[in-house]
């Protein structure tokens, strides 16, 4: 690091600090405040100690929502990351159609999340939707509103549709930055397609892959709007993820104490997992030579 040490740089950071503190620290203090208190209305609060935390950690509802969320995140990560890499690898690096492709691929990312839910609602319904109608015509029973399996398939398909492009664009950006000389050297060395990927392309896109992985994990773990619009958490509770459960509790039932305690546990889980991922993934392969074929 050749950056000079200068504490005056803090003056440049202060606006951001104040702005984010307003939106982050004050609300978090409110949440912490609620999580230790009980209320019977009339704005009267009583100290409740760790009662809410114990409630949350012993409730099946919380663990089920957490489990569903983890399963969902694992499934979409294991689909989107390899699929994204594969599509990025097959994309040509030059040509007049490349910008067109990139724009079309980025399009789902810019659709408001509840419209994404609406699009898939319209697309998946058996009576009016292309997907639902086609599946029914093929002779399968399909109804994402009443069948648990169908609901999960539809939500996963929706998420793959919505977010795989992010992985593609990130990997593609990493791939186009590899100098052509690397590939020529690999060709001279007679490297196979796999070793080109393993020793040239993968190390080069490692940085962006970490970003893709983190972003996809975080966003899938806090997913709210799309499944809420599509299934509303049903059928039953089968697609009630953590955020949906939390909003139900906080705004629907106005159970401030349990909701606040659940918020804190939820946020701690997200932070811990992200921190671990970030540390582990930025250290993996650091000591390995970046591109062996280069020599």
């Amino acid at each position, binding site marked *: 690091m050749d950056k000079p040490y200068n504490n005056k740089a803090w003056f440049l950071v202060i606006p951001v600090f104040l702005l984010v503190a307003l*939106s982050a620290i004050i609300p978090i203090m409110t949440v912490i405040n609620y999580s230790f208190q009980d209320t019977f209305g009339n704005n009267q609060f009583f100290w409740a100690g760790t009662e809410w935390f114990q409630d949350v950690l012993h409730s099946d509802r919380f663990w089920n929502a957490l489990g569903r969320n983890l399963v969902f995140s694992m499934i979409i990560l294991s689909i989107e990351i390899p699929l994204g890499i594969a599509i990025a690898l097959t994309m040509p*690096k030059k040509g007049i159609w490349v910008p*067109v*492709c990139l724009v079309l*691929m980025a399009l789902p990312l810019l659709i*408001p999340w509840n*419209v994404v839910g609406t699009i898939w609602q319209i697309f998946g319904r058996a009576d009016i939707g292309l997907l639902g109608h086609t599946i029914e015509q093929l002779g399968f029973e399909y109804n994402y509103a009443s069948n648990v399996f169908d609901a999960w398939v539809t939500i996963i398909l929706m998420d793959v549709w919505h977010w795989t492009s992010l992985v593609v664009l990130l990997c593609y950006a990493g791939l186009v930055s590899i100098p052509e000389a690397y590939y020529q050297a690999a060709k001279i060395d007679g490297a196979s397609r796999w070793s080109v990927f393993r020793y040239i392309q993968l190390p080069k896109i490692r940085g962006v892959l970490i970003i893709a992985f983190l972003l996809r994990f975080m966003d899938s773990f806090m997913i709210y709007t799309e499944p809420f619009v599509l299934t509303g958490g049903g059928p039953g509770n089968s697609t009630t993820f953590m955020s949906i459960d939390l909003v139900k509790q906080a705004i629907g039932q106005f159970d401030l104490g349990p909701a606040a305690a659940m918020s804190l546990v939820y*946020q701690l889980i997200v932070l811990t997992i992200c921190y671990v991922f970030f540390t582990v993934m930025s250290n993996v392969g650091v000591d390995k030579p970046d591109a062996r074929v280069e020599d």
Partner: protein
Amino acid sequence: MNQTSHTQPNAGSMNKPANLIDTSNVRASNRFAKKSITRWLVPGLYILFLMLPIYWLINMSFKTNQEILSSFTLFPAEPTLHNYTVIFTDPSWYTGYINSLIYVGLNTVISICAALPAAYAFSRYRFLGDKHMFFWLLSNRMAPAAVFVLPFFQLYSAFGLIDTHIAVALAHCLFNVPLAVWILEGFMSGVPKEIDETAYIDGYSFPKFFVKIFMPLIASGIGVAAFFCFMFSWVELLIARTLTTTDAKPISAIMTRTVGASGVDWGVLAAAGVLTIIPGALVIYFVRNYIAKGFALGRV
């Protein structure tokens, strides 16, 4: 109106077949492309998959409700603009778009203005607690919006800001400012430090150097950061919906109104959906040349 009718042929024609035709010059320029057709096959199929639901939405927005519910047609039998007319003639519909654009614009300006100096500090200096500060900023990007909904409501109620554009713009700063700092820091680190030093030797003051020399150098980074702020503020619904009631209600929240006593007005719902895609498509078009690098947050 013109824009909406343009998008319809696009969705149909820009799929796989269009991409397959023009592959000859790609092949010449890419020595590793063994078979041009198979090169485009996977991206082509993927784009087809992406476009199908959007095509269905556009298709439905030009149908009458009767046609939607009674028959299954791949193209509107009697194309109608009725659904769009409903939206453009009813103030409670189209003000939703104006509200959304106002708070998204405000948020983008605030985020970029605050993030620029901070990103410079992170990219050029070490200071007390810089690493912790950076992770704390990013951790807000990871915070589930659902956690913040209720406290935000109470916070902005206390200031009497509920149902104003600025409330939503400030609330969205929670995740957009850290993102902007992150992206800009990536782009700024790509600018050699010698440029700063030369400018100071030439007698530039810091503000003058920053605006006159440094900002033009990272113009593409600012564009990309603005694009991301626009994007994440535009697509967010939960916080925007909670902080507004009528005067600043975003379009995405108004869309839920189509569920009436007589069932869902699918045609209008689809038309409203199509209209929410257009601003995103326009913004994407402006940054199309930086899109790949931008999505890598300037870090390649």
